[in-house]
């Protein structure tokens, strides 16, 4: 059902050859989903570089036992900021930035449902991010107690109480994420509304691209899972500023309650981060295998199941706090259950490749690495659901390995794949395949060299969040290996940045549809005009462009 939206003015400043102030102004006041999408992704990548540097400093320190390159305070701030940045300032903005750009195009709409709310969401994120990093300068409160927050990205109570975290660094963590949360929920509402009310004619829910389906699920999860974090943060604010006792164990308050509230948000959050990665590969793998996705309805059903089940597993982060055997068993059950729809999707992707004619362009390279790495991540996740095993390795480097296999081996790899895939659409230019291969191979080597040994380190007793370790534990060698992998990853990212810069200046022209793909964004120019489509599309199947290219064998009858 397409909706007539009042036309948005074409940006004339650029066309008139105006100077940079006018062009900057255009970007600052824009409500165009494409521009906001680009801004989200660019800002997210900038924070990615910062958080990567934070991680590199930590790995330099941990390369050998007893190193004192940075003080304990600085190290603790580094891991807090690294985690907080990667989750809230890299993952969320990039996945929602892509959705911003792609969802209206994929459903044949002109923009998102609420363009001004969209702009609000972006600026709330940017403000929150800058507020968090301002803590390095302004975090010294009355007691001069520290700069950036050092409470860990999940900020357990009562460590975050005034008594144990004086000064204002924790408040910067709290407020910046609170502000960003409002923006994220706003964007999720925007995406849901767009998907449900602004699809072009012929596009029933059953004909939406899988990317759109999965972003719908992600947005639904966001709307339900972000507010509990905001609630917990308001409670922490009340505790810290007004002497409330929500998490004050001296007054009968419960430290565990923070964990329940936080993880009730936190677990869906990591699916909010990962499902868009699934969405990316659900578009990339079919195109580069030259085959329709195998089992579209099942993939949709699995995505919905994941969305629902992700709200039932949260306390698997809490198996060591003493919840008692019945609760431990219940959450083990729900956690193992969610592995089923997740695994099913892997099977669907591999089955799509079966019988195909696979072309290993850079997006497909990243998608293939994702398959192996996410398989590993999912299996270590199932292992972690085995509660007694969890008692050994929770809060150790095993868990660090697990979630980095999910969020780097899974999410970051698919984000890179998505960038190589959609960069031509966004900019009209192709990234270099040669540099793309260098980027890929350096990154896949570096990533696995760093994160695979961490599984072993956890199993031989190395806990998380330690700024150093004794020399008599036998952890030295593998820590050195882990740290060496960072060099490869850094080189990979450098190659990526060079690739982007060169392509923007003199990359080959991409044309409308460089990959011979099938969804609606490839039916318009690269980059698309501000109004997206000259005529509102009408679709008859899940792959409108396949139907156009093969009118003798359209998809509709097969679906």
């Amino acid at each position: 059902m397409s909706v007539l939206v009042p036309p948005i003015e074409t940006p004339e400043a650029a066309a008139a050859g105006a100077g940079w102030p006018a062009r900057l102004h255009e970007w600052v006041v824009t409500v165009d989903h494409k521009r906001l999408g680009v801004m989200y992704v660019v800002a997210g990548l900038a924070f990615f570089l910062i958080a990567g540097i934070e991680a590199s400093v930590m790995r330099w320190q941990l390369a050998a036992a007893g190193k004192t390159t940075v003080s304990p305070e600085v190290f603790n701030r580094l891991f807090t900021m690294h985690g907080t940045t990667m989750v809230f300032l890299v993952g969320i903005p990039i996945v929602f930035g892509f959705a911003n750009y792609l969802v209206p195009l994929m459903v044949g709409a002109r923009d998102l449902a609420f363009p001004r709310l969209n702009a609000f969401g972006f600026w709330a994120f940017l403000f929150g991010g800058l507020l968090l990093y301002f803590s390095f300068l302004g975090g010294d409160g009355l007691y001069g107690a520290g700069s950036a927050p050092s409470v860990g990205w999940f900020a357990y109570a009562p460590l975050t109480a005034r008594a144990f975290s004086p000064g204002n660094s924790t408040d910067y963590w709290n407020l910046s994420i609170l502000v960003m949360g409002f923006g994220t929920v706003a964007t999720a509402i925007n995406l849901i509304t767009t998907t449900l009310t602004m699809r072009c004619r012929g596009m029933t829910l059953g004909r939406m691209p899988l990317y759109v389906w999965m972003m719908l699920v992600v947005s639904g999860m966001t709307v339900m899972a972000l507010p509990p974090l905001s609630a917990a943060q308001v409670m922490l604010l009340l505790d810290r500023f007004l002497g409330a006792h929500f998490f004050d164990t001296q007054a009968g308050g419960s430290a565990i309650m923070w964990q329940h509230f936080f993880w009730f948000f936190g677990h869906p959050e990591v699916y909010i981060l990962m499902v868009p990665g699934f969405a990316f590969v659900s578009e990339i793998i079919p195109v580069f295998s030259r085959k329709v996705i195998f089992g579209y309805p099942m993939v949709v059903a699995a995505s919905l199941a994941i969305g629902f089940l992700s709200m039932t597993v949260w306390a698997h982060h809490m198996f060591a706090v003493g919840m008692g055997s019945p609760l431990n068993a219940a959450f083990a059950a729900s956690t193992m259950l969610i592995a089923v729809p997740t695994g099913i999707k892997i099977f669907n992707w591999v089955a799509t490749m079966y019988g195909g004619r696979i072309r290993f362009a850079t997006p497909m390279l990243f998608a293939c690495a994702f398959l192996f790495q996410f398989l590993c991540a999912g299996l270590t996740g199932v292992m972690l659901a085995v509660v007694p095993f969890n008692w050994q390795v929770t809060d150790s480097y095993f868990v660090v390995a697990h979630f980095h296999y999910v969020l780097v081996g899974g999410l970051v790899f698919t984000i890179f794949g998505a960038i190589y895939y959609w960069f031509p659409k966004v900019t009209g230019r192709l990234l270099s395949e040669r540099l793309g291969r260098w980027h890929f191979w350096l990154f896949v080597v570096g990533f696995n060299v760093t994160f695979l040994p961490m599984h072993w380190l956890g199993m031989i007793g190395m806990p998380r969040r330690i700024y150093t370790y004794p020399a008599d534990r036998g952890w030295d060698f593998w820590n050195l290996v882990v740290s060496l992998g960072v060099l490869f990853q850094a080189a990979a990212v450098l190659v990526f940045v060079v690739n982007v810069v060169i392509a923007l200046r003199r990359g080959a022209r991409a044309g409308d549809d460089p990959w011979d793909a099938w969804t609606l964004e490839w039916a318009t120019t690269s980059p698309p005009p501000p109004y997206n489509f000259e005529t509102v599309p009408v679709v008859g199947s899940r792959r409108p462009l396949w139907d156009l290219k093969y009118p003798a064998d359209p998809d509709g009858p097969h679906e």
Partner: protein
Amino acid sequence: MTGASTPSMFAPVSTPAFAIREVSFLVLAIATFIFVVVAGLTVYAIIRYRRRPGDDGREPPQMYGSAQIELAWTVVPFLIVIILFLTTARYIFAIEGRAPTAQALEVTIVGNQWWWEIRYPKLGIVTANELHVPVSDPANPIQTFITLQSADVIHSFWLPQLHGKTDLVPGKTNRTWIEPLVPGTFLGQCAEYCGLQHAGMLLIVTVHPRDEFAQWVAAQQAQAADAPAARAGREVFVSVACINCHTVRGTPANGVFGPDLTHLMSRATIGAGVARNTPENLRAWVKDPTSLKPGALMPAMKLSDDKLDQLVAYLVTLR
């Protein structure tokens, strides 16, 4: 790379750790099997169905799905999950449900930033950071049940060779148990981020043969040594602020904010494991704890060199 002192979960010495290793092998085997199968199929697909040079560029036959295949790969994982869950539940209840027998040793551990207070309530012993327990042998088994509490923030008690970890949560009392089957020394440390010196909150457990353990208990129950030669240092100890935080049984010192020092020299390390317990290190610690453990909450005592020497000479008598 793993030495004798590497705290590996795959080198258990205690009953719950053995049980955990058992179920871990099972899940590791299942996970490895699934990985090999799925990764193998993926590798096969990548190699077999790659585009070759000389490909005519036509689209391959499109396969939209298959109800039977999809049903199969839903049902099989679901069955695996059921088996895994039932096994897991059995181990959970068996390990957590163990109750103490009459002769079980009871220990209470209170987590502090950044050290461990260790009490043996029925034996009247209070010590810190280094846990001593008797070995359990099949003819005469004895488990150690540990009550876990916290005086400030959340900590976690983890010695991989003895058991999985259990958190110490303020306002809550948790319980865990170990049953070491061989004597020896085993390492661990705090496993829940608890602030600045989380990394410096180490644990040492010494498992003694029965008679040796009885000797250790007797030595710990004794009053503090009161060597005449160290009287000057004892005077320094009780007159300076030490007694506000520390206890030495038999002296006026009965503070509880810091570790009990009655038998300080029976411990191998100081600062919860960050330094060996030698007179030099002791001196450095008392002079300024942050020189050995940056951020330690004990204040520098600002003693003159003479007073410091006397004090250390006294402390080293506290065996």
